[in-house]
């Protein structure tokens, strides 16, 4: 909260800590590999110095140097590989732990947080942001470290050979850094515009292609093409510039490298003529001149990556640090076999303090009673479920189940007292069997089939190619909405708790399936306290109490006859059904 960067790095270190030893080893390997890499050109130079002219070659000397070179190269290669292995291990383990922590916190976050987050945003935090951390931060760190060691090492080696030429290299090299910086600063603006233009085009394509059927229905294709082509051309001109300017970095820095190389060559040659320098040393210097500039170019890239990785890490840590639901108290009451009574006492609730939704709501439900919740679409009927299930806590008053205030019960025992079937049918990717046994993973096949039979889905499951082992793909896939709802009912049937929360379907369920669902509902509701988000007149009229909601508020409450006599909102809602 206070400072941004330290607050990201420190918690992030927690994930690296268990692998500190490995990290340390990897740094040692980095130093070894850099040192050996830098030593190789010296040996090559030494060898070249022993090969002067015709009949002036010291073969014994050359052999000795080459053997040393061979060993050095072998060490370099080994150290490089081992270093990568260590960094990989540290990175992948740290990232896995980070991801697991984020996911496990997701299970504990209050519903209010989850409802307020866009799903896509959360997914990108747990997937691409974490990948970013692994690529940018951890791998980037390794690169940064080797880069720095290389620079320091090269400087040391060069200084040990010749101070004057070293100075030439040192003074010219930063030029390439400046050039790179200059280019990236100027292309940044272009890239921003390009990103905007591309976003615009993507959005248009998403709309026009994603809604192709609607476009066709209105013969809008040509118009769409025209608009698309306009954006397309706009994007092109911005994009060409952005791509061109960003691709300048590479040739420009290469040019600077060339200059460094040339000046090293010239100054080196002069020094050699003056006699202070051998040809072999010159060849070694030329290799260094190439090597020295490389890490500079890389580091500027790594730093940008590090920045975006830090930002990504921040977003992931936000999820991990988000306060969880208040855990159940140690002495929280475990609801066992609740008697099906429920009492709401002066309940107050609001999502945001400024907009009170439920004020002073009281209700007394006896065991086995049926409560219907009615109101127009979007009137906030889910609020009611949120409070019953304690997805949200009431802001005032209390709800008492089976004589116990629900705030004093464990959440899991409270929630398992209810069987919940929502209209928004959610099934997990997995087999049908697993889905039905969701509440009781160790259920036997007989229990599963029995539940499926009483939810009227046994017959259609049997007709599926793999029966109970049919895998339900993402979001139900090939099953119809009605079939999915029947499966959700079967899921509840398996354990059948003493209280029910049911959501009647409004549409997209065919009549015959609806009859089946209705029968299943009726069967479940027998003798059970039930809260029904009701659309069917019979359910509403037969309810022991009707709660009428409108734009988030509970506006009326009573039996059908009471409410009709009152002639309020419910009465007009009821009557409108029969106008034509």
């Amino acid at each position, binding site marked *: 909260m206070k400072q941004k960067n330290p607050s990201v790095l420190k918690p992030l270190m927690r994930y690296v800590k268990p692998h500190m030893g490995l990290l340390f080893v990897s740094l040692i390997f980095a130093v070894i590999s850099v040192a050996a890499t830098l030593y190789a050109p010296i040996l090559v130079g030494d060898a070249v110095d022993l090969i002067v*002219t015709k009949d002036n070659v010291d073969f014994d000397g050359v052999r000795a140097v080459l053997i040393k070179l061979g060993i050095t190269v072998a060490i370099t290669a080994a150290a490089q590989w081992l270093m990568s*292995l260590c960094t990989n291990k540290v990175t992948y383990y740290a990232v896995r732990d980070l*991801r697991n922590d984020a996911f496990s916190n997701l299970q504990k976050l209050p*519903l209010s947080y989850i409802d307020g987050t866009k799903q896509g945003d959360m997914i990108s935090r747990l997937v691409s942001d974490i990948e970013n951390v692994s690529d940018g931060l951890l791998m980037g760190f390794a690169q940064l470290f080797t880069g720095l060691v290389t620079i320091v090492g090269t400087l040391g080696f060069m200084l040990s050979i010749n101070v004057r030429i070293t100075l030439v290299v040192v003074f010219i090299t930063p030029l390439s850094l400046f050039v790179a910086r200059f280019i990236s600063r100027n292309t940044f603006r272009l890239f921003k515009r390009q990103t905007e233009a591309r976003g615009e085009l993507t959005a248009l394509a998403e709309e026009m292609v994603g809604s192709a059927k609607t476009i066709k229905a209105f013969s809008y294709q040509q118009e769409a093409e025209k608009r698309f082509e306009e954006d*397309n051309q706009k994007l092109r001109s911005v994009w060409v510039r952005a791509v061109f300017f960003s691709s300048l970095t590479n040739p420009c820095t290469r040019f600077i490298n060339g200059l460094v190389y040339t000046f090293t060559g010239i100054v080196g040659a002069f020094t050699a003529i003056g006699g202070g320098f051998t040809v072999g040393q010159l060849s070694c210097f030329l290799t260094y001149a190439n090597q020295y500039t490389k890490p500079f170019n890389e580091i500027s890239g790594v730093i940008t990556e590090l920045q975006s990785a830090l930002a990504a890490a921040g977003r992931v840590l936000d999820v991990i640090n988000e306060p969880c639901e208040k855990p159940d108290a140690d002495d929280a009451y475990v609801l066992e076999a609740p008697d099906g009574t429920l009492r709401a006492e002066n309940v107050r609730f609001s999502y945001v303090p400024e907009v009170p939704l439920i004020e002073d709501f009281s209700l007394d439900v006896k065991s086995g009673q049926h409560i219907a919740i009615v109101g127009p679409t979007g009137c906030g009927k889910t609020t009611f479920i949120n409070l019953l299930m304690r997805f949200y806590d009431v802001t005032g008053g209390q709800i008492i189940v089976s004589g116990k205030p629900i705030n004093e019960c464990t959440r899991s025992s409270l929630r398992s007292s209810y069987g*919940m079937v929502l209209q928004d049918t959610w099934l997990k990717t997995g087999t049908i069997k697993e889905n039905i046994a969701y509440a009781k993973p160790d259920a036997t096949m007989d229990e599963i089939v029995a539940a499926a039979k009483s939810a009227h889905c046994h017959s259609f499951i049997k007709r599926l190619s793999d029966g109970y082992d049919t895998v339900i793909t993402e979001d139900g896939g090939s099953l119809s909405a009605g079939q999915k709802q029947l499966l959700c009912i079967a899921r509840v049937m398996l354990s059948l708790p003493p209280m029910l929360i049911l959501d009647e379907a409004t549409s997209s369920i065919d009549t015959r399936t609806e009859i089946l669902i209705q029968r299943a509902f009726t069967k479940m509701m027998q003798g059970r306290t039930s809260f029904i988000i009701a659309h069917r007149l019979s359910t509403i009229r037969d309810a022991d109490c009707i709660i009428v909601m409108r734009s988030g508020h509970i506006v009326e409450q009573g039996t059908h006859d009471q409410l009709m006599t009152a002639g309020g909102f419910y009465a007009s809602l009821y009557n409108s059904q029969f106008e034509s």
Partner: protein
Amino acid sequence: MIKLFRYLKHYKLQSILGPLFKLTEACFELIVPIVMAKIIDVGIASEDSSYVLKMGGVLVLLGVLGLAASLTAQFFAAKASLGFGTELRRDLFRHIGTFSHKEIDRVGSSTLVTRMTVDINQAQTGINMLLRLFLRSPFIVIGAIIMAFTISVKLTLIFLIASPLLALMIFLVMKLTVPMFKRIQKRLDKTTLMVGENLSGVRVIRAFSRQKDEEKQFKENADELLDLQIKAGRISALTNPCTYLIVYAAIIVIIWFGGVNVNIGGITQGELIALISYMNQILLALLAVALLVTSLTRAQASSARINEVFEIKPSITDEGNTTVEPDETAPAVCFENVSFSYHDNEEYALKDISFTAAKGETVGIIGGTGCGKSTLVSLIPRFYECSSGSVKVKGSSVKIYPFDQLRGLIGYVPQKAELFRGTIRDNMRYRKRDATDEEITEALDIAQALSFVSEKPDGLDTVLVSGGKNLSGGQRQRLTVARALVGRPEILILDDSASALDLATDAALRKAIAAKTEGMTVFIVSQRVSSIRYADKILVLDDGVLAGIGTHEELLQGCELYSEICQSQQYTDGKGAAQ
């Protein structure tokens, strides 16, 4: 990818000049070691400082020329690749536009969107890389070998052995790791799926207190991902050390045999250094290739996916159709023994349907999901082609109409309320491009949308975000109804378009349509009896077969399925007691 090269044809010049300039740059770069060798052999040996300076000047000049050549190459590459992307994007968009519903169903519109955006961008980047960088490495490798050849034929043999060895090594690493990276990607996709599923199912998961199990499954997947990553990392981490090993092995051999050669007077010391430089250049060039191959494989895969789309041919076209003279006396819509199946040789979704809808009639269509209601009405605008029989609009088969004319007669309200970015006014002009505000207001009024639109501070100028997500489901649905009504279509099709409306609004909407659209033939598809109760004609569909046709009263008497539906919905006509 090669198939898509045709999109470079307008950029032939740039696509040839780009690599050509790159080649020039590579040549300049390859001359450098030779010049350096001269400095050593001539300049230092004869202590001639002016020669050293002169050659230094040559090096700077080579650098400047190289820079110029490379900038030109980048420019041409950017031009060509972006031109490629732009034309490809336009053509693909146009091509997708010719698809009928059948193709869209088969491929899926979200897939098409990805092809349009992500895949084209990948292919474009690939082309840019190809023109800019990929050709450079082979140039350098081949050039370095040629240069080595000019120095010493015998020593070039070492180059000829080392280069293929390097290529083989890179190839092997790729071959081993690419499938592993694909599996890693799959695991990552699964991670995405799990997170998404957990968010959308959070209430169910908590209701059943299954958080711990979800965590366990997630961790299992994470462990498998870790395992794969470490395995793949082990192999791909070999690339650099191996390249390094091979190159330095070659350098050791060069020094040894070079020494032998120098000893007998074959080559000079400076030339030996040049040979070593060439080997180093090959090293750098190949390391660059390894990096590039990944993005090129990606571009290759994207290109294949784009080509897949291009290979799909639309199954319905209006090519060659000319404007039809409608017969005003004929029924507005007429189905004659129409049968239809979504996929050839599959079970019929509609079987032998015949009926007529006279001008001005309201036709209700009811039946369970999957019974073919939506299919039936989507045959009228010829979204799909019937397999046998014929669908006639105003006396002529829909097959002979140009799409624009046919669909211009129809106002279609799809099940899914899709609105577009732009103002409400823009959205209201999809059917009639030049609709006036009066026409729009009238349509909004009928669709029961006028009140909420005029309550908005910006009225018709209210800007909708993508998909109209800043409106409620019911509001969106009413706007799609209004959109279809603008410009008074002769045929209005409501495909279960009231599902998000509460009963009162639904009733008011039907009332307004009945009262204010005289002469319009209206099709109402619904699951609710109340929605179609007062239609002039009700079609009852059962599994693709017409189970009954007639008015509500007639069907209650004569159609068992219909009375069953009424019973299940406890539909009582509003007068009598519950049945």
